[in-house]
């Protein structure tokens, strides 16, 4: 919402300067977004008189002027046809910056003749579109004075952000009222501002226009008045200047009047050309399939939920949002109908959302205009039409009733300190409320003014009092603190996530945060996403991710494209599924991608090493360990997912069903889809599948190291090539649980000495004696069990 300081002062009697106004606006909740003073950009431009004008010796269309800008005469080359001796204009000296194009004026030779600046056009100073010639000023303009000061352009424009609750401040007058309540000045009576007697109706003798509402829900009140015999020329300078100052283009007196009142009083109106209307003008629901070409030139398809204003022939107005092109006023308009209606805010919001159409009128109706301001609004509009375009007014048609039932409730002045934290004397509270337009009875029943739709209870009253008193007066009060030191607050799941995150970083992985949404194709390649946005910002950000890997792979690819030779990324975040109850099922997950080189080539080996699937496995196990999982007892099984290399991937499971992690080499097709060259390995830790530890106190079991030293025995077995090594290790470990405490594979060999289709697996078995050292017989017995268990798997002890 923009307005100029002088505009504000039409309603507010105050000596306050711009800064005081801005500070006060911020203090009372009308946030100042910007202040611009057009005079600042024009401060170098002065009023100057052309002393003489002569033809340029080298150019037909140029003249050489001698200009008096308050000092010694200056030579200026000028191309404007209207430049002539004796005229007054606006001169920009060397060093001045031309607002329209940002050019810095310099002393320069133009076709061989020195020019010391420029005589300016309206367009060059961004004061209008006229660039046919240089500005011509009246003869009494003071030569040498700063032009902007003389022209009254030193009028800062304030841009205020109005929150959705404050429809009353969508007009300059409402803002003035708020400032007055905050003590910045006095609100002038409305009748005085418009020089109109609002207690006497402004009605003519012509018959009242034929309007009605058939849609009392959407348009509960429709007031209208006609004016005949108007001449729709330009609006007067004061109105045009105000509109221009806030960036609105003046169009014609009738259009400008409605635009002006919308800004000045927050009251949208519409003016129809009566010559274009046929029969009664009716507020009704649109019919499905009806269309309108709106004033913005676009065609809108309407439906039966939308309120429109139509006559016998067609729809003329999307009620409360935008008028139609057909019945809009033009230079030829002589008879007009002024509409001052009340549209239901919810209807306006829905229609506006559906049509994707926003306008000054919608912004105001949707917030809710003052329902008690139809008569005055119409009277002021009619007066302006009569004053500015002539003609004579008809009687007024008043159809329906705007919702003006007053809101009254009881208020306890103690609530101000109880909720607002600041003590304000009851009388002071009363004064503030009355200045804002509330009426307050002796026993503190409050009637809310009709223009404050947002206020509907005591908490709102506290807000009004506190914002006018100033939030600076609210003193800080510590929250009560529980006894003792702060208690731990993290849930087990939060602690687990923190541990995994820090463990991953400690292992050399870099934490990334990737978008939660993926392109459809990427989601499909990773099991498919169930949540697909109806209004994605782009097709690349459409489906809520079913896996963290696509985001990490894209990030890895971007890094590779930037020349990285090694990428170690991880992310902890959610995957999105649908739960049995239809709600979102969001599962905490850690994803890891390792791409490129595990180690760069170096002087020791001369070679770079690339990541392989076991790097992914190592990360998966390390992070599961950090999460408190006993990883030794996990099952290693297939089915990591189609995005992995089928022969170089696996899952880690706690029991055959509960998958805690998947890892492996990425499927070459997947890597290719992400434009990644070479081997890429990945792991996913399904944090939600990890059973959370129950708190069991801090006491650890007693430390009881074995009294006797452990012994190790080595075995080598031949097994069929496809036999999982882990099966052999588990079998051996289980062969004598009393004695075998660890089994470790230390060699795997195929080739010379091992027949085709077989591999040799060498295993170190650790035995822990308890009572006494092993005898040879005991060692032999254990050995036999190990061999028997291995043999059961088809393994053959190597001689």
């Amino acid at each position: 919402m923009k307005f100029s300081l002088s505009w504000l002062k039409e309603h507010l009697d105050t000596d306050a300067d711009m800064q005081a106004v801005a500070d006060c606006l911020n203090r009372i909740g009308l946030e100042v977004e910007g202040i611009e003073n057009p005079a600042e950009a024009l401060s170098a431009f002065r009023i100057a008189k052309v002393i003489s004008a002569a033809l340029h010796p080298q150019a037909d269309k140029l003249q050489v002027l001698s200009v008096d800008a308050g000092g010694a005469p200056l030579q200026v080359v000028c191309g404007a046809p209207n430049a002539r001796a004796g005229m007054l204009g606006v001169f920009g000296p060397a060093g001045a910056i031309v607002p329209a194009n940002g050019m810095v004026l310099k002393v320069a030779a133009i076709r061989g003749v020195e020019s010391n600046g420029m005589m300016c056009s309206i367009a060059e100073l961004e004061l209008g579109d006229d660039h046919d010639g240089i500005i011509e000023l009246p003869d009494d303009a003071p030569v040498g004075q700063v032009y902007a000061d003389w022209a009254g352009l030193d009028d800062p424009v304030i841009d205020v952000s109005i929150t959705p609750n404050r429809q009353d401040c969508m007009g300059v007058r409402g803002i003035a009222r708020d400032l007055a309540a905050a003590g910045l000045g006095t609100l002038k009576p409305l009748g005085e501002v418009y020089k109109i007697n609002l207690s006497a109706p402004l009605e003519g003798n012509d018959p009242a226009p034929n309007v009605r509402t058939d849609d009392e829900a959407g348009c509960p009140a429709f007031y209208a008045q006609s004016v005949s015999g108007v001449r729709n020329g330009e609006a007067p300078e004061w109105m045009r200047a105000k509109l221009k100052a806030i960036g609105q283009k003046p169009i014609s007196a009738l259009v400008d009047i409605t635009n002006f009142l919308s800004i000045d009083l927050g009251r949208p109106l519409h003016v129809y050309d009566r010559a274009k209307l046929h029969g009664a003008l009716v507020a009704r629901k649109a019919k499905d399939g009806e269309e309108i070409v709106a004033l913005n030139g676009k065609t809108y398809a309407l439906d039966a939920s939308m309120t429109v204003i139509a006559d016998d022939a067609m729809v003329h107005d999307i009620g409360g949002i935008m008028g139609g092109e057909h019945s809009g006023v033009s230079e030829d308009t002589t008879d007009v109908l002024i509409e001052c209606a009340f549209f239901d805010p919810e209807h306006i919001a829905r229609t506006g959302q559906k049509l994707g159409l926003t306008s000054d009128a919608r912004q105001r109706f949707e917030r809710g205009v003052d329902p008690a301001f139809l008569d005055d609004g119409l009277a002021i509009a009619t007066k302006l039409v009569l004053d500015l375009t002539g003609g004579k007014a008809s009687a007024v048609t008043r159809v329906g009733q705007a919702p003006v039932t007053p809101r009254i409730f009881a208020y306890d002045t103690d609530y101000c300190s109880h909720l607002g934290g600041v003590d304000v004397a009851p009388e002071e509270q009363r004064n503030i409320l009355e200045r804002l337009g509330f009426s307050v009875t002796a026993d503190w029943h409050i009637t809310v003014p009709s223009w404050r739709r947002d206020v509907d209870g005591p908490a709102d009253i506290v807000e009004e009092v506190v914002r006018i008193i100033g939030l600076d007066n609210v003193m800080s009060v510590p929250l009560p603190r529980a006894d003792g030191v702060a208690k731990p607050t993290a849930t087990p799941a939060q602690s687990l996530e923190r541990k995994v995150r820090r463990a991953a970083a400690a292992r050399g992985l870099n934490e990334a945060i990737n978008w939660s949404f993926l392109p459809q194709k990427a989601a499909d390649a990773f099991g498919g996403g169930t949540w697909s946005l109806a209004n994605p910002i782009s097709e690349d950000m459409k489906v809520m991710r079913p896996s963290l890997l696509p985001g990490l792979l894209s990030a890895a690819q971007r890094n590779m494209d930037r020349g990285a030779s090694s990428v170690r990324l991880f992310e902890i975040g959610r995957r999105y599924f649908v739960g049995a109850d239809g709600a979102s099922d969001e599962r905490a997950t850690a994803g890891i991608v390792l791409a490129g080189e595990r180690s760069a080539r170096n002087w020791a080996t001369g070679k770079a090493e690339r990541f392989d699937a076991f790097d992914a496995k190592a990360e998966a196990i390390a992070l599961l360990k950090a999460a408190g999982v006993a990883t030794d007892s996990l099952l290693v099984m297939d089915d990591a997912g189609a995005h992995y290399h089928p022969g170089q991937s696996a899952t880690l499971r706690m029991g055959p069903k509960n998958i805690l992690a998947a890892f492996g080499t990425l499927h070459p097709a997947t890597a290719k889809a992400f434009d990644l060259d070479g081997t890429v390995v990945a792991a996913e830790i399904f944090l939600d599948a990890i059973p959370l530890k129950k708190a069991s106190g801090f006491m650890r079991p007693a430390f009881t190291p074995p009294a006797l030293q452990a012994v190790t025995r080595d075995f080598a077995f031949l097994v069929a090539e496809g036999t999982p090594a882990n099966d052999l290790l588990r079998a051996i470990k289980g062969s004598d649980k009393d004695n075998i405490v660890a089994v470790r594979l230390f060699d795997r060999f195929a080739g010379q000495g091992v027949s085709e289709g077989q591999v040799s697996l060498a295993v170190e078995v650790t035995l822990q004696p308890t009572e006494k050292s092993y005898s040879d017989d005991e060692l032999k017995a254990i050995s036999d069990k190990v061999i028997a268990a291995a043999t059961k798997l088809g393994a053959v002890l190597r001689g």
Partner: protein
Amino acid sequence: MSDIETLQTELITAIDSASTLEALEAVRVSALGKQGSVSALLKTMGGMSPEERQTQGPIINGLRESITSALAAKKAELETAELNRRLATERIDMTLPAPDAPRGTIHPVSQVMDELAEIFADMGFAVAEGPEIEDDWHNFTALNIPETHPARAMHDTFYFPDDMARDGQKMVLRTHTSPVQIRTMTSQEPPIRIIAPGRVYRSDSDATHTPMFHQIEGLVIDKGIHLGHLKWTLETFLKAYFEREDVVLRLRPSYFPFTEPSVEVDVGYSVINGKRVIGGAEGWMEVLGSGMVHRKVIEACGLDPDVWQGFAFGTGVDRLAMLKYGMDDLRAFFDGDNRWLQHYGFNALDVPTLSGGVGA
């Protein structure tokens, strides 16, 4: 000179002149071996008379001891020399680089969330969570934002198709962390003190907006909580977070549908080396939205607003990170650029603690 003395002299000379361990061993064998000269003398002691043994015994034993220790000393000397010779051949250029260990990092957003959890834990706030895919009721309606409310337009909501609706509620990507307020109030009894950090989404993308970002929500519901408590909480939190005592707040009245009164919070900054640094009051920037929880919201959660009242606040986690650590482009937060992560990321061991300071 007796024979023994002569023998001793000869052996000592031989030991001294042995230049290798093998030569020394030969001397040892010649003296102390089974056929050795000293061994032969020792054997003669068996045939001596007691008187003779009394005089000769110490002499012969003395010979043996002196030869033994001379051998040991020479052996040690030769071994040391040998070791030194070998070590001299084992010299390595220690300026060669050691194997690289990759440096891992924690993302600034995670680090800041941990910092916030630590600070608010000291004020008695637990960390609450909620779904990012929310229903319309939790994201809007329960927060006093009905369907036609103009505030909805401010939110640039991402929607899911109607066939994903649940119990007639349209599903959306949460536009703020405020629905966690609702989930907390409907699932636990007051008094409540929580913060709720997490991802939020708005259909907005430019230099300073990304369609996904992070917010943190705070909620206190208790008896007799007022604006003064809110002001204190925010001041205390910001001072602790920025680890500066000169943090100054400016509260401005504002509007959020779910709070009444609503307060926007600006924090003062100073300009140091062309960068805005929190602290002082050379200028103001908006950092927080807050207010007293609206009665309708408390009612919607099944609590009695005449008994329970409190405040809520929300702010951007990414923004807090930028203000403290100086990043200036939000988009880079979500790009996964290794160079950026190495530059702005945190060491795994920089766990925020109150005793060690929450900042790193």
